[in-house]
């Protein structure tokens, strides 16, 4: 039975350049998964960017030393497919009756597709948005699951004019993504424009009711003597039956250094 709560997927990832992988996402997550970090697959840094993974495998010099950044191919010269990468991992999850599972990406740059056990799900464009995919019905019955994600760079990675400048040729401003990546007066360009699964990946397991996006606001009166905590929360019934719920809120003072809860 899967434990309620969030399980981070932050280890055991592999990566490969998309142009070097023959298999499709469906094949990678059913008949022909990668066996391990053997070419073209390599150990991946997730969360992280494509460059972070290439650096981890010493396939590029560290761009933060000397003029190494000049030795790394810029996406404007290589084309977007050079920095379009597959990421692959496996995870174990076995649901109990009336449990539900979601696959969550807290941030990818810039768009992608996720394949889980042969099922494709789109990860729409945008660097600063979360993705939560209901995977309850596509988990493998034996609990062993194969996940492959292909991540595409920003649509407008732009090119760096010979004279450099703030934001390069400004093409990146057409997308909803970090703009510093084309270089600024204090920063050299980032060659992959920060493409990748750049933030947390997790699996969350809930019962029939899922809580999301609570909002907490405090209001004050009488010179801060009287305070009110206002709380709203979304409850989603993932099941096919009405749910009689008890919603509980508990507020406890944070413990000072010298106080311990026994």
């Amino acid at each position, binding site marked *: 039975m899967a434990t309620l709560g969030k399980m981070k997927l932050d280890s055991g990832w592999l990566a490969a350049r998309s142009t070097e992988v023959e298999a499709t996402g469906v094949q990678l997550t059913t008949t022909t998964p990668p066996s391990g970090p053997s070419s073209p697959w390599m150990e991946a840094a997730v969360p992280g960017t494509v460059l972070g993974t290439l650096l981890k495998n010493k396939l590029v010099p560290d761009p933060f030393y000397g003029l190494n950044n000049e030795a790394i191919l810029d996406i404007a010269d290589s084309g977007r497919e050079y920095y379009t990468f597959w990421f692959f991992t496996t995870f174990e999850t076995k649901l109990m009756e009336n449990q539900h599972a979601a696959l969550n990406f807290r941030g990818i740059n810039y768009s992608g597709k996720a394949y889980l056990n042969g099922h494709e799900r789109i990860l729409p464009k*945008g660097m*600063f*948005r979360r993705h939560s995919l209901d995977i309850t019905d596509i988990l493998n019955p034996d609990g062993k699951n194969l996940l492959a994600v292909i991540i595409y760079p920003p649509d407008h990675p732009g090119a760096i004019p010979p004279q450099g400048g703030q934001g390069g040729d400004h093409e990146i401003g057409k997308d909803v993504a970090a703009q510093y990546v084309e270089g600024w007066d204090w920063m050299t360009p980032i060659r992959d424009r920060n493409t990748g699964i750049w933030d947390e990946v997790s699996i969350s397991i809930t019962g029939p009711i899922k809580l999301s996006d609570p909002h907490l606001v405090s209001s004050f009166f009488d010179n801060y003597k009287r305070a009110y905590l206002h709380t709203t*929360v979304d409850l989603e019934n993932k099941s*096919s039956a009405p749910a009689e719920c008890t919603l509980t809120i*508990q507020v406890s*003072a944070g413990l000072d250094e010298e106080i311990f809860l026994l």
Partner: protein
Amino acid sequence: EHHHSYELSVTPGSLVHYTLPPLFFYKPNLWWPNGMGKQSLYNIEISVDVKGFGESDSWSHQFGFRKIESTIDQATGGRLFRVNGQRVFIRGGNWILSDGLLRLSAKRYMTDIKFHADMNFNMLRCWGGGLAERPEFYHYCDIYGLLVWQEFWITGDCDGRGIPVSNPNGPLDHNLFLLCAQDTIKLLRNHASLALWVGGNEQTPPKDINSALMNYLKLHPLFKFYDENSNVC
């Protein structure tokens, strides 16, 4: 200190936006910026139990009771910040991001942010050409008392004031920008350190984006009502 439960039913396949009755606190420990007092935080846990199943989901957060206001000071023309009614002399620093390859671990954030607090800063300004910073960034700003000025993803250079002038109407997909903004606001809005949302760096976002952001971020009418009728409770 406070433990309250409420009963409700949710029909199959539906999503309910539920507002709990306000919880009353007498003289709560207030959260203060670095150098002005303690950064008192409360553990808030919300859980939902379903009849016939048991606990279905839970969520927790470290919350700070504080009131942050900022207005343009007529005398100086600058932005005047108040926390819990007290004026704050802002000692701030620019923050682009911690690492150009986005190796953004909690440990790294803790080290970076404690460093700024040790330098006696009390504000970090997250520049519009960088990231909407991550919950771990805000968590340590909550702990170390660094107010955060968070800009959305508009910069003068890339959005209408650069050389060459480009993208005068901002990003191509305004709906995508606003969807990302909404989701980012939901991700970060409960952090005590979040002091100010700013449309962009050295540039006002395009009119439609700017007015939508103003709308998303205006104070809920309920709180205006509470504020103006402070004896209402």
